[in-house]
């Protein structure tokens, strides 16, 4: 071993208590950092998971159009059209098959699914429940929203072979006292009334949705709206990574000439809340690491002060400034290295513990997982910060003038 590291090693062991305190500080700092940031990832994943059970990454639809004058006026002229209104167009997407093919050509797109939304009332004797009937292709819808996982009674697959079937939320089933095989009457906003057979009941993680949403075959939804088989109100698109959606949406809008809205834009308020959560957790975890760094800085500063005679002797017998820097930064890095390892162990323990805590409700088990990237980030941060915390006192030690010490 190089003499510099031998000396560093001796100093670490001759001050066991101080070394232990410094290591402990890093263990706590990095452990909490990794844990909190893994938690953040877990929270985001769990929120996204539950969100993508109801919405797609990108939704393509025909937005309402405001009437425009036929002759475009120059800017300073009086507009020809005053008080324009929404053009009473139908909301159908024209030639949906071709458009879906076009969207599928984009490399990052994994799923494309047509959908017809029908506002309807579920009829129950004299009372009515306001609801949304979603017309889907059952297989594609399951791939996109993982509906089968939320089914509590019946079989979602049987919807496909039953054109008169319907899959309802558990809230509707409870309210209307419906079992599998019962008939449910509903009236669409276009006045069409149908009686459908309950094939399955789902329970999502959102009680609100369970009270008004139901799935039917797309053809049934079209007939509820008294429209033909080409009537599609929206195309849902999933991508390989939800984070890509905001980038892909404009591209899809361009290709299709329809409005393409990504999930982040559709849920702005929720995104703002997520962002805030992220800022708070990042800030708190960084502060904790910083406190640990101050611990190391303090302890190494004290070591340098108490070893000032040694430093003078070492310099007198031929150690260079950079040797002295190495002696003291090596101590910091050793403390940092052991601390980081301990921190990883601590984070793993805490995460393991929490993963087995059942929260219940929408969340289930505590949504935290071992996040390799966060471990890596924590380790890197820990090493960089301990290096800096050691380098500053080491630099001071390197600048010690031996003569001024010998004169004392």
């Amino acid at each position, binding site marked *: 071993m190089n*003499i510099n590291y*031998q*000396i560093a090693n*001796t*100093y670490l062991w*001759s001050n066991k208590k101080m070394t232990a305190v410094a290591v402990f500080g890093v263990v706590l700092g990095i452990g909490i950092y990794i844990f909190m940031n893994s938690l953040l990832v877990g929270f985001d994943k769990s929120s996204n998971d539950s969100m993508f059970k109801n919405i797609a990454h990108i939704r393509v639809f025909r937005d309402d159009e405001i009437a425009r004058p036929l002759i475009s006026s120059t800017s300073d002229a009086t507009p020809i059209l005053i008080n324009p209104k929404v053009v009473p167009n139908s909301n159908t997407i024209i030639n949906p098959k071709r458009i879906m093919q076009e969207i599928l050509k984009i490399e990052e797109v994994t799923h494309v699914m047509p959908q017809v939304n029908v506002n309807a009332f579920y009829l129950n004797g004299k009372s009515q429940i306001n609801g949304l009937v979603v017309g889907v292709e059952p297989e594609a819808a399951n791939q996109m929203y993982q509906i089968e996982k939320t089914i509590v009674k019946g079989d979602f697959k049987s919807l496909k072979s039953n054109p008169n079937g319907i899959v309802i939320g558990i809230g509707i089933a409870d309210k209307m006292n419906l079992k599998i095989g019962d008939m449910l009457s509903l009236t669409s906003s276009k006045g069409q009334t149908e009686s459908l057979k309950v094939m399955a009941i789902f329970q999502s993680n959102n009680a609100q949705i369970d009270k008004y949403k139901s799935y039917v075959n797309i053809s049934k939804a079209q007939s509820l709206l008294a429209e033909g088989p080409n009537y599609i109100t929206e195309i849902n698109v999933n991508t390989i990574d939800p984070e890509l959606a905001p980038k892909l949406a404009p591209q899809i809008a361009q290709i299709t000439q329809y409005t393409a809205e990504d999930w982040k834009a559709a849920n702005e308020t929720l995104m703002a809340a997520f962002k805030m959560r992220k800022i708070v957790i990042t800030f708190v975890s960084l502060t904790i690491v910083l406190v640990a760094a101050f611990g190391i800085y303090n302890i190494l500063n004290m070591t340098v002060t108490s070893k000032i*005679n*040694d430093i*003078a*002797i*070492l*310099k*007198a*017998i*031929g*150690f*260079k*400034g*950079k*040797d002295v820097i190495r002696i003291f930064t090596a101590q910091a890095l050793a403390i940092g290295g052991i601390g980081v390892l301990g921190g990883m162990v601590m984070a793993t323990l805490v995460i393991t513990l929490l993963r087995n805590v059942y929260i219940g409700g929408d969340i289930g088990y505590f949504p935290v997982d071992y996040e390799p990237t966060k471990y890596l980030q924590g380790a890197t941060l820990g090493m960089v910060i301990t290096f800096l915390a050691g380098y500053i006192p080491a630099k001071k030690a390197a600048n010690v003038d*031996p*003569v001024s*010490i*010998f*004169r004392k």
Partner: protein
Amino acid sequence: MNILETKLINKYFYEPTEFHVLKDISIKIQKGEFLSLIGKSGSGKSTLLYILSTMDTDYQGELLIDGLSTKGISNDALAALRNEKIGFVFQFHYLLPEFTSLQNVMIPALKLGKWGNDEIEHRAYEKLKLLGLEDQAQKPSSKLSGGQQQRVAIARALINDPLIIMGDEPTGNLDSKNTRIVFDIFKELTEAHGQTIVAVTHDDDFAQNSHRIIEMRDGAIKS
């Protein structure tokens, strides 16, 4: 051949008041010489020795070691030069307390890296033996007496076979028997191995028996 030469060295202290501590110091020391530096307390002996050892570079004038001027040489290069060519015994601060005597003696050689670990340990052990300290080799240096510590420091100064050994009262803490031993070692080093000794001393006997005496008075050399 001059192993050590100074040309008109002057040094001032500015704190607390301006003080001309070294005045026109010009000396030539030959290879193999055993030189004693004497003078009253406060006459500037330690100050001069720090300059000769290259640790203090804050002065006017020129210092030549082994024929080479030290002007404009970087601190790192001076450190390497000290490690290889100069052994130093300090007036008060001696050893690294957390290391054993043997380790203290080994450190300059480990830094130099000229020999392997085993050979360095062997050499260090030999030097300790020379100074009658073989039984103290494995003791932490903080557990040694003042005189023992000073002798370990002398052993450390010898480990790299330096061209020049400088001592600031190297026998200041020793009894007459050990002073005699150290004196004989120094004499042997100069006469048999051609090494050079520059020793500050208050011991008249020691000075009288060395090859040459330089006396300092109020920062100047008394001729």
